[in-house]
């Protein structure tokens, strides 16, 4: 375990920030370029996970456990969000027979 702890000391916090923002940007791109609602939700999960990892990294570097507790809450929130979101997708699919995001464009009016 000492070995692992000495491992993370070598990595600057900057690299964690850059890595997590890259993953976050990939999630945003996924929301922009896909039309399947399920894949859009998966991209949102990707963004949530990037933020989770960054919170855990800050917590480890600061020596403060609160960050990791927040990550735990975000995970509980993500589970609730996925359950409700997938239920809505199933209901939409039952009515429109497609998972295309464009089939929901009637909601604009």
């Amino acid at each position, binding site marked *: *375990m000492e070995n*692992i*702890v000495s*491992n*993370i*000391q070598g*990595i600057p*916090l*900057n*690299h964690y920030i850059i*890595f997590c*923002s*890259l*993953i*976050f*940007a*990939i*999630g*945003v*791109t996924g929301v*922009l*370029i*896909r*039309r*399947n609602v*399920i894949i859009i*939700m*998966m991209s949102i*999960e*990707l963004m949530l*996970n990037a933020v*989770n990892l960054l919170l*855990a990294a800050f*917590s*480890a*570097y600061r020596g403060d*456990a*609160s960050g*990791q*507790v927040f*990550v*735990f809450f975000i*995970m*509980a*929130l*993500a*589970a*609730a969000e*996925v*359950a*409700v979101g*997938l*239920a809505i997708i*199933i*209901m939409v699919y039952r009515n429109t027979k*497609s*998972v*295309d*995001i*464009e089939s929901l464009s009637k909601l604009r009016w």
Partner: protein
Amino acid sequence: MSIFYFVAFLAIFFALMTIFTKNPVHSVLYLVITFFTLTIHYILLNAQFLAVVNFIVYMGAIMVLFLFVLMLLNLNEDTEPMKSNLVKIIGAIAGMCLIATFLGAFRVIQPTNELVAGNADIGLVKNLGKVLFNEFLLPFEISSILLLTAMVGAVLLAKKEVRKA
């Protein structure tokens, strides 16, 4: 030390594969691998509790839920709606603009890189449990109500409507 860069490269690669693969089932499987690499990151940060929770809740529960829905709706490559190439290119450019904005902002800030010494094992279950059940007891209870509400809502939404005669 170099294991961080290797795993980070793998995570970015599989995240890109997630959003660019046409078949939704492959997309979910790539996302599972991405989450596995993030679990390795948690272990590297010595956040053992989060690593286990990420492994069980995300990879075990949430991703299986996605797979079940894909299986239930019988989605595959043929039914996959795709945007036109122009919209895809514009989306990719917008994502790169976001990355450029982030990197420009990070050049200005200078985070301190030192670890605060003597707190290497805050990520263990024992220490996190102490924090969770002392300072964060009320949010913890509220999140249980949130989960209950989400469960009731999901069951209500996904249930078939009973037609009354």
